[in-house]
C-alpha cells in the first residue's frame, strides 16, 4: 500500500490535501457555531425571567439581563461567545450559576467512556459480521446477517432498551436497570451497570457498519488481484486480511466514523432510559431550562466530534489509498 517508490512525491501531495480538509472542516465548524447561536436565540423565554420567577419586577429582570449581557445586540454576543469558546471558556451557566466548562467536565468523561466501550464492542463485531457475510456471499448465513442488520438499522432504541431491561433486569435479575457512574465504583461495577446501555447502543450502531463493510469487501472480492492471490495459493483469511481489507479501508473507516459519531449526540434516548449522566441528557436539560450557554457548548461538542471523526476518516482514506491523492 504505502510503497516506497515515491516517498518524497507523496509528502508533497499529502500535506496540502490534508491542510485543505482541515481548513474546510474549520469553516464548517464556524458556520455550525453561527447556526447554533441563531437557533439558541430562537428559544422562547428568557433566562433572566426564568431565574427570577414570575414575581420579579420588570426592573429586576432588566438589571439581571444587563448583568448576564442579554441586552446586547446578537452579533456582539456572538463575537464574545466565539472568542470565549476559542479560549475554552464557554461562559457561565445561566441556571446552575457555575462555569459551563465545570458542568461539562463532569459529564464528558461519562459520555466518552460509554462511547468508547460501545465502540470497542461494536467495531470488531461489525467487522466480523461484514467480513463473514462478504465471504459467504449468497449463502443462508449472508442472508441471515443481511436480514438481521436490516432489522437492527430500523429498530427504535427504546425497544432494544426496554426488552433488555425486561430480560436481564426483571426476568433474569442479572443486571441493574439504572446506570450508576461514580468515581468510587470499581471498573467491574461500572461495566456491570453500563452493560445494558452499551448493549442497546451497540445494536443501534453495529448494523450500518456491518452493511458497509460487507458492501466494500464484496466489491473487492470480484477483482482480478484477489483471484490471482487465491491461485497463488494464499489462504482465504490471508487474502481477505492482507489484500482486501487494506484496499477498502477508506470506505469502511468512513462508515465507522459516521456510525460512531452517533454515539455522542444520538445517545439521548438510551441515556434517558438508563438515567445515565452523559452529555446528551445534559443537553436535553439545557433545552428545557433555556440555559443557552450550556446548550450551545453541548451542541458545539457534538458537532466538533462529528467533524473530527469525519476528518480522521478522510485522513485514513487518503493515507490508505494513494490514488485519492492524485486528483
Amino acid at each position, binding site marked *: 500500500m504505502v510503497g516506497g517508490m515515491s516517498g518524497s512525491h507523496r509528502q508533497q501531495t499529502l500535506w496540502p490535501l490534508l491542510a485543505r480538509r482541515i481548513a474546510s472542516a474549520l*469553516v*464548517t*465548524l464556524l*458556520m*455550525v457555531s453561527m*447556526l*447554533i447561536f441563531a*437557533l*439558541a436565540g*430562537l*428559544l*422562547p423565554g428568557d433566562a433572566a425571567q426564568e431565574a427570577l420567577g414570575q414575581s420579579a419586577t420588570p426592573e429586576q429582570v432588566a438589571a439581571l439581563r444587563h448583568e448576564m449581557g442579554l441586552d446586547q445586540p446578537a452579533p456582539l454576543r456572538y463575537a464574545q461567545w466565539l472568542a470565549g469558546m476559542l479560549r475554552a471558556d464557554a461562559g457561565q451557566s445561566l441556571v446552575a450559576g457555575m462555569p459551563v466548562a465545570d458542568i461539562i467536565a463532569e459529564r464528558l468523561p461519562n459520555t466518552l467512556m460509554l462511547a468508547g466501550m460501545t465502540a470497542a464492542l461494536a467495531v470488531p463485531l461489525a467487522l466480523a459480521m461484514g467480513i463473514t457475510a462478504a465471504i459467504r456471499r449468497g449463502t443462508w448465513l449472508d442472508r441471515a446477517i*443481511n*436480514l438481521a442488520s*436490516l*432489522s437492527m*438499522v*430500523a*429498530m*427504535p*432504541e*427504546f*425497544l432494544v432498551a*426496554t*426488552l433488555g*431491561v*425486561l430480560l436481564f433486569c*426483571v*426476568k433474569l435479575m442479572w443486571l441493574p*436497570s439504572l446506570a450508576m457512574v461514580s468515581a468510587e465504583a470499581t471498573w467491574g461495577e461500572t461495566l456491570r451497570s453500563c452493560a445494558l446501555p452499551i448493549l442497546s447502543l451497540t445494536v443501534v450502531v453495529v448494523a450500518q457498519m456491518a452493511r458497509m463493510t460487507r458492501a466494500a469487501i464484496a466489491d473487492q472480492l470480484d477483482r482480478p488481484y484477489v483471484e490471482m492471490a487465491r491461485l497463488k495459493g494464499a489462504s482465504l483469511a490471508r487474502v481477505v486480511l492482507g489484500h482486501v481489507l487494506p484496499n477498502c479501508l477508506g470506505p469502511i473507516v468512513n462508515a465507522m466514523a459516521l456510525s460512531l*459519531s*452517533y454515539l*455522542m*449526540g*444520538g445517545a*439521548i*434516548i438510551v441515556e*434517558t432510559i438508563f438515567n445515565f449522566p452523559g452529555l*446528551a441528557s445534559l*443537553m*436535553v436539560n439545557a*433545552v*428545557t431550562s*433555556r440555559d443557552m450557554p450550556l*446548550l450551545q457548548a453541548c*451542541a458545539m461538542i*457534538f*458537532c466538533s466530534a*462529528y*467533524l473530527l471523526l*469525519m476528518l480522521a476518516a478522510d485522513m485514513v482514506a487518503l493515507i490508505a489509498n494513494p490514488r485519492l491523492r492524485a486528483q
Partner: protein
Amino acid sequence: MKQFASLWAKAPPANRIAFAFVGFWLLLALAGPWLAPHPVGAFVDQDVFSGLSSRFWLGSDYLGRDVLSRLLYGTRYTVVLGLGAALLASLCGTSIALAATLWGGRVDEVIARLMDTLISVPSKILALVLVAACGSSLPLLLLICALTYVPGNFRIARALAMNLAALDFVAAARARGEGKLAIAWHEILPNMVHPLLADLGLRFVFVVLLLSGLSFLGLGVQPPYADLGSLVRENISGLTEGAPAILAPALAIALLTVGTNLLIDAMKPEGQ
C-alpha cells in the same frame, strides 16, 4: 392493475411479505379509528396494566384504557406525520439538489456548504432545539422532521443529478436551447426516480424513529394526541411488570420501520 398482478406473481416470497407488511400498516393508518374496539380516551378497564385478554386484546394501559384502540389511533399519527415529513424532505432536498446541479459554480458551492453545516449537527439534537424553539404542534413537528432530513436527501439527489448532468443527452438538451426547468423536469428527474424512491423509504424510517424518539422524550406529539412513541412514554412505569402496554407500541414501531426497510431492500434492482 393487470401489470401489478403479474408483478406480484413473479415477485419472490420475501418481497411479497415485505410488501404485505407495509400495506398492512398503511391500511391500519387509514382504517385504524374504525377498527378500534373501544373509544380512544375512555377508561374501560378496572385494572391497570392488565395482560392480554379476550376483551382487551393487548391489555390495558396505565390508566386502564384499551391499548389496542390507542395503538390504532397512534399508528395514524406516526404514519401520516412520517410520510408527510419524508415526502416534504425529499421534495425540498431534490429540488435544491437540481437547482445546485443546473446552476453549478458559486450557487452549488454555497448550497453544498450550507447542507454540510446542517448535516454535521446530529439530527436528534437539531430536532430537539427546533422543537424547543418553535413548539411541537403537529404541523410544526412535520416541518421540523422534514427540515432535519433535507440535507441527507440533498446529498443523494445531488450526487445522482451531477452524474446525469454530465451525460450526453443532457448536453444535447442544453444545445437545443431548453431551459433549466425543462432539463430538470424532462431529462434529469425521470432518470433518478428509482433511487429517490428508495431514499424516500429510508427517510420515512428515519423520520418515524426520530419522531417516536422525540415523543418518547416528551418533546414530540403532545396530549391529547398520542403517537406510538408517546404511548411508550406514558406506559414506561409498566416496564418492570412487562406490561403489553409498553411492549406493544414499541414493537409496533419496530415492525413498521423494519417492514419498510425490508421492502426497500426487496425493491432494489438485482445485482446491487
